[in-house]
């Protein structure tokens, strides 16, 4: 072998080794990232480690997205209803005052354990049957105005651990003021726990498995991470469908929204075999969808963008939806009856 050939091969080998070494270092750094990684909302420290589902929405990005402006006529009714609920409950203007929202749902057995174990009291049954959810709303709020709004509606402002809290006596829902820019809304038990202190119990950052998915999803406009059984219950998947899905432990979905939507759904199966089975199931559905969708040109681009990937126990499905496709999917715009004007503090 000539020295020219030897140097060429050596250079190629060094380039490859440097690339692999750099990639390995990036991988190890990614694995060892602790605390709150960049891009992950700090409110995650209020989420318990055993949360069944965690949801994040960058409300400001959503509200200012081209997509929302384009789809406004079609989604106006549902959007108005949600905004009205927030306004009625706490006088918060979702569109103007909220930056982002982090919400979580506890598994029902955790709520059960937290309640009285001796005899199934009414409270225990209520806790088990009612979704145990909490929403952390970060934004720019006028606390005095919101408290006045609650008093005007007949509510009472109490103090819990130095924070103001208002509990709705009938529904057991509450709103608490963690910081001037951070509200907690949800079940009174969970609101009180959040007001006690962040990180008092084991928070989500100690759950490496879920945090890996959260880190992956961070930076997206909307994401949801959770245990598959909780997510499938939330989606109300029929038993016949969820029974056909190979064993999946964790699932995450993330979407970046602006002109269109780029979404990624990731599932962590119980083992590599289950993951391969799931890939085959998804592959089959995707192929069928493509054959069916070919008849409808508005879905053609979205179907072509579908990419199935993942290694080991991970299965990942990515796709992109254009504004045109979303318009085709959105419900038709019907003329709505005029809604009552939003309540305002007196």
């Amino acid at each position: 072998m000539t020295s020219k050939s030897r140097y060429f091969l050596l250079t190629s080998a060094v380039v490859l080794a440097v690339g692999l070494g750099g990639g390995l270092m990036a991988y190890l750094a990614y694995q060892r990232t602790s605390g709150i990684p960049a891009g992950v909302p700090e409110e995650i420290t209020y989420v318990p480690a055993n949360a069944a589902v965690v949801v994040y929405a960058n409300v400001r990005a959503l509200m200012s997205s081209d997509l929302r402006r384009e789809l406004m006529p079609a989604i106006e009714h549902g959007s108005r209803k949600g905004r009205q609920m927030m306004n009625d409950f706490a006088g918060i203007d979702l569109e103007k005052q909220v930056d982002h929202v982090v919400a979580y749902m506890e598994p029902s057995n955790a709520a059960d354990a937290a309640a009285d174990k001796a005899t199934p009291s009414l409270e225990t049954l209520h806790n088990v049957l009612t979704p145990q959810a909490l929403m952390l709303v970060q934004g720019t709020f006028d606390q005095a105005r919101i408290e006045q709004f609650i008093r005007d509606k007949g509510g009472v402002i109490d103090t819990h651990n130095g924070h103001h809290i208002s509990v709705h006596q009938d529904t057991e829902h509450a709103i608490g003021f963690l910081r001037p820019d951070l509200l907690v809304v949800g079940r009174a038990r969970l609101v009180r726990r959040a007001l006690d202190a962040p990180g008092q119990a084991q928070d989500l950052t100690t759950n490496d498995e879920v945090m890996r998915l959260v880190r992956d999803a961070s930076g997206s406009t909307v994401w949801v991470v959770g245990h598959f059984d909780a997510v499938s219950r939330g989606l109300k998947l029929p038993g016949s469908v969820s029974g056909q899905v190979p064993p999946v432990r964790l699932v995450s979905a993330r979407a970046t929204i602006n002109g269109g939507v780029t979404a990624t759904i990731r599932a962590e199966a119980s083992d590599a075999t289950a993951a391969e089975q799931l890939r085959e199931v998804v592959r089959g559905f995707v192929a069928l969808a493509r054959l069916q969708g070919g008849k409808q040109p508005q879905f053609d681009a979205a179907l072509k963008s579908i990419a199935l990937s993942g290694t080991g126990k991970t299965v990942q499905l990515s796709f992109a939806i254009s504004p045109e496709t979303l318009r085709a999917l959105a419900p038709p715009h019907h003329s709505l009856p005029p809604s009552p004007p939003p309540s305002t503090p007196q």
Partner: protein
Amino acid sequence: MKRPSFATAAFRVFDISVGQMLWSRRTVFMALTVGAPVAIAIVLRTIHEMGMPVLRVNGAPVSGEVIFGGLFWLLYLRFVVPVLGAFYGTSLMSDEVEDRTLTYLFTRPVPRGAVIIGKYLAYLVCTELVVLPSVTAAYFLITPLGGGSIGAAFPVLLTDLGILAIGLVAYGAVFALIGALVPRPLVAGLLLVFGWEQIALLVPGYLRRFTVAHYLQSLAPQAMPQNDTMAAIQSLFAEPPSAASSLISLAGITLVALWLAARTVERRDYVLDQ
């Protein structure tokens, strides 16, 4: 003079052949083939650095991981690996025949089979050390686009590199056999890659099991990009084998093809044009 062992003879042929392969006219083709994906990656990265959206599907940005997956499938797995295998694998013996230099090798006191094995090893070193750095460079340039993480996707890169390395091993062995058997091996090789393999993968049934692509593509962590109806049909009828059975099949194909190639070279009388 003591006759060298098969391994020693193969290594000597390998040592001579590496330089011949690297600095032949085919190197230009190889440089273009593996340079094109890197050039595409540089262009995409430049567009990204200039603040422009890299790739959009009707308005929605596509992530770097997805772009890299498409590049891996469409350029490397479906084109670069089989085509480099065909160009270099089929030339292992035919170049010596065409250049009338085969006599110099066959008159040496080395087993004839060691000639093709040594040349095959030289092919592997040359192609692997050119293709794999190219994939790595494309990965580092493309993956960070659209919020992708180099660290998170690193296991996928390792799998991709492994698949391409195995692909070059298997295709090289098959084309080495074709080169040892057929008078015009390059035409036969290209027909195999772009004719037989493409048709067999589309036909439902057992035919696909007689292709390298069937086993190789089933190892890919990324899903096959399906940008036309044919690809959708292929995916619909596909019954991908498990990773273990694919690896065993590819190892079997490689060993059988190499053994047959060495046996053919040992027994065949090559007639050199005067």
